């Protein structure tokens, strides 16, 4: 897999893609609840990096922010969020399906905060610029989202 540009001196975008994209794609899938949106957002984020070349200083951080922003915009543009019904959450096992079902019942800000904290390992201050929020607001979203998610997973309310 070769990058189609050669403007990054130390590592190609293709190498970063190989390292980052599997986890990023899963995170955006959990956020958007839609495989197509996840693929579009991740592909578009990396495409933007390729177009901009060395203008993007920190590719890893940039693609996480870009992919989440693009996914959020895509959902908004489609005037929909994850459908509340008649929508099958596909997944390789029951745990994965249960987690995605529970996440879709949180607000987008809570969902995004939890995924970036517990799946991507970002701190609240790192999550804030990715979601276009403030550190304080992210902490609130994390606290409320944690409480709701735990409750749903423990009581089996996630559907």
């Amino acid at each position, binding site marked *: 897999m070769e990058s189609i540009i050669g403007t990054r001196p130390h590592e190609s975008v293709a190498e970063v893609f190989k390292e980052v994209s*599997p986890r990023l*794609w899963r995170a955006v*899938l959990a956020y958007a609840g839609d495989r197509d949106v996840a693929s579009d957002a991740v*592909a578009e984020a990396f495409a933007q990096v390729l177009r901009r070349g060395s*203008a993007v200083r920190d590719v890893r951080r940039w693609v996480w922010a870009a992919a989440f922003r693009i996914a959020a915009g895509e959902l908004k543009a489609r005037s929909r*969020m994850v*459908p509340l019904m*008649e929508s099958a959450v596909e997944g390789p096992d029951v745990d994965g399906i249960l987690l995605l079902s529970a996440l879709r019942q949180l607000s987008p800000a809570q969902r995004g905060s939890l995924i970036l904290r*517990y799946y991507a390992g970002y701190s609240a201050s790192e999550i804030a610029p990715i979601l276009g929020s403030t550190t304080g607001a992210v902490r609130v979203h994390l606290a409320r989202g944690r409480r709701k998610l735990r409750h749903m997973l423990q009581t089996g309310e996630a559907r």
Partner: protein
Amino acid sequence: MKLSNVFRGLDRYQAPPELWRMVEDRAAMPEGGFDEPTTRLRRARSRIIAVAVAGVLSALSLVLVFIAFRPSSAPAPAIGDVPLEVVLSCDGSGTHVEATEVQAQRDGVHLVVRNLLGTDPGLSVRFDGRGSGYNLAPQGVTRLTVSMPPGEFRVACGVLDSETVTTAPLVNVVDPERFYIPVSLECPGDATASFGTGIAAGADPLDVATTVLEPFMDSGDTVEVAGYPAAEPRIVRMVRGESVVAMVTLVRQVDGTWRSDAVTGCASLLPA
């Protein structure tokens, strides 16, 4: 329960193998509009100031025009007094609609939801045997535009289950301007399929859809915007004779261009 362990469940999902090819395809397209955060904030700040100044000037102009040409009586809000938007409220006692009829607009049906619950219960809409759901602001007003066809729909704050789907408020969409053009496929034996057509993008959704549909077209087929003419996402349909045989869903990208998002059509269009 350790949440980081719970989230490890996501590791079992696999990204599509063609993801890098998608990146390369997109990189060859016209540039999109996502800026690096610092640049974005700077530009956003400038935009906000410009918009605020323009807003103040526009408001002043409107006030002056209104004072100069104030009508003696308020005009009817819409054709036949049917409102242009459905106003709903969500409170502890359920879902309340202020009118049972609404007039479709060029971009779809407008819903204004006043949420008094302090949490987001979600909004469920059911029409034409299908359903969809939307996020609401936890408190306050959310405006939504839904591409539902003329006819009746049910709407409820929260989930429409087998019981509430028959008791939730019923609203009728009227379309006196005939904005809506049907998008339902009419296929032999009802056999439909998703077409893998690759990605196309451009300034005109009709041109983009035509490019995508070209391999499936016969002479005499027509390609036209369907659904609501200003809806987002936009629908373009392909008609053969009297039947709709394929349709393309297009989404507007951040740079204002349109990208084909999904193509479905009659299975009979695919090569045997």
